């Protein structure tokens, strides 16, 4: 894929509500044709950031550039962005057709073209024949698609989606995740989605900005976020993780993390090391599928990718719980220092038959431990 052009640039944007800083000097760029997600817990400022882009809020500082033009001060109805609201915000007194045509009528588009474009939009969201219905006659999923069609029919440069799937039940939500992704490919419009659901962001987005307390902590592809989180918050917000904390001890090329009861080796080229000095509080993040569990009798799992004991960090423990998840099995292990760790094993692999009470050694390859600052 050719490198994409920058479409939106958010520069030092701050928004306060009274004493609360909802968005705190945020910088980000969003590229043309990208599916970009703002991900974070409720109250992290992601919705405020989207509403700043839509024009429903005015920033206290900073610039919001779209195609190089500053949007600050431009009324919402003069911005080439359209938004799909969490509540869908369909006009209850209008038919589906009139809802979708509303935006085109504001542009003074001709009658014939309106008819054609509304029909296309209805077909796009697979609601052909629903034009004469009213919003209250539709199911939740149908309303959601009308809201989508109403925003897309304007052919905006950016489509903003505020928690678009939150009101749907789980099965429909999973379907719609793929549907939205397909739609974005079809229409070739930049999608900016706000969500608190990490799975949603991971499935749909090309890049994700993880937000917490008004700041963007990391912008990365789903893979990068999962494999190389840059902070403890990102690591624990995206997927499950085991976090081992301590103080960083640097001796030349080698580094170790000194915890209360144990010392862990840190990978030499660990990306997180650059910003950390000797003695800093730090944590090592290990994903459950990277944490191997084996009966204590066999000191090393036979099928472990690296047989070299020197390349492993190890801690012993006892299996406390086994969670069946269909194709995988999750062990909750109580480690010797009293903390708990999660390990995930594919069913059918070695070590999928442990039972609660089994004494085990848990190990991970040093290179799979991600070093992050422990803020």
């Amino acid at each position, binding site marked *: 894929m050719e490198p994409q052009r920058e479409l939106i640039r958010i520069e030092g944007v701050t928004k306060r509500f009274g004493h609360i800083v909802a968005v705190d000097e945020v910088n980000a760029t969003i590229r043309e044709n990208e599916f970009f997600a703002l991900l974070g817990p409720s109250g992290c400022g992601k919705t405020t950031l989207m509403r700043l882009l*839509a*024009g*429903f809020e005015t920033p206290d500082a900073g610039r919001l550039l779209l195609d190089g033009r500053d949007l600050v001060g431009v*009324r*919402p*109805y003069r911005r080439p*962005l*359209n*938004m799909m*609201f*969490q*509540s869908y*915000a*369909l*006009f*209850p*007194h209008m038919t589906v057709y009139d809802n979708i045509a*509303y*935006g085109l009528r*504001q*542009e003074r588009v001709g009658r014939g073209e309106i008819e054609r474009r509304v029909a296309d939009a209805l077909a796009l969201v697979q609601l052909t024949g629903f034009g004469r219905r009213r919003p*209250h006659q539709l199911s939740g999923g149908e309303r959601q698609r009308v809201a989508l069609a*109403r*925003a897309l029919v*304007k052919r905006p440069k950016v489509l903003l989606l505020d928690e678009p799937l939150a009101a749907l039940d789980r099965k429909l939500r999973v379907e719609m995740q793929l549907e939205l992704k397909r739609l974005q490919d079809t229409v070739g419009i930049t999608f900016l989605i706000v969500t608190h659901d990490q799975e949603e962001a991971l499935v749909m987005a090309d890049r994700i900005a993880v937000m917490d307390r008004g700041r963007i902590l990391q912008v990365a592809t789903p893979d990068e976020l999962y494999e190389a989180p840059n902070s403890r918050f990102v690591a624990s917000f995206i997927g499950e993780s085991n976090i081992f904390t301590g103080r960083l001890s640097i001796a030349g090329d080698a580094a170790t993390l000194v915890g209360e009861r144990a010392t862990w080796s840190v990978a030499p080229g660990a990306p997180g090391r650059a910003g950390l000095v000797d003695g800093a509080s730090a944590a090592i993040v290990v994903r459950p599928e990277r944490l191997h569990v084996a009966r204590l009798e066999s000191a090393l799992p036979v099928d472990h990718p690296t047989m070299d004991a020197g390349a492993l960090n190890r801690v012993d423990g006892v299996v406390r719980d086994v969670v069946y998840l269909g194709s995988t099995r999750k062990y909750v292990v109580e480690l010797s220092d009293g903390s708990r760790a999660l390990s995930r094993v594919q069913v059918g692999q070695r070590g999928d038959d442990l039972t609660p009470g089994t004494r085990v050694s848990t190990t991970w390859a040093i290179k799979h431990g991600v070093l992050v600052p422990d803020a």
Partner: protein
Amino acid sequence: MRISFLDPGRWLGAHLGLVLLFLYLPIAVLIVLSFNDSGLPTTWTGFSTRWYEAVLTDDKILGSAVNTIIIGAISTIIATAIGTLLALGLERLTNNALLDGLVFVPGIIPDIVLAIALLSFYNLVFTGMLGLKLGLWSVIVAHVVFNITFVTAIVRTRLRHFDISIEEASLDLGANEITTFRRITLPIILPGVIAAALVAFTLSVDEFVVAFFTAGTTITFPIQVYSMIRFGGTPEINAIATVVVFVSFVLILASQRLNREQV
């Protein structure tokens, strides 16, 4: 078959029946008497519509009725416009209980207090300083004062269910604030606004105390009725009262229906 003596359904049903009887028996008597040919409350001499005919040919009554309809219509239109905007402002901009209370007070203080206050104010400013005479206009303004309160309260109940993002969606789709109000906000709250207007009109038409104090020499319909019964009840009063009951009933029913209907 044994009937439980303590069955709450039966008790509440009986209670409802008795209350309705208590509320409507006097009105029923009035309606019956309005058709009594003799015109006396003690003797029934046959069915007649002559008292209605008498009302329709009485210029004083008709003149006062026209005044009342003018006052009702104009004060309703003004109070509905002001009250609707006030409701929007209070619902959107503030969360202040004191302000809510201040807006509501003119509607719930005794009429006599409001009437005296208005009269003093009129005497001081309009008749005293500007040399204007009290008349239709001063009753209209007085009715606007208390009707703003009721319109605001009724429209606010409608706005409480209003999803503000619907307006934002309209702005987002390219409509400016004026178009958004005209095409989105107003049509959605319109049933509440009409309901409020019906209540305001009913209140204005029935209103006596405030009108009596602020009308100067102008005679409104309730004032006319009052002056008629001061010199002994005439059978025409029964006919007039029956018409008023009927009109009020229809207006209130229509208002309730509109306000209940949720889109």
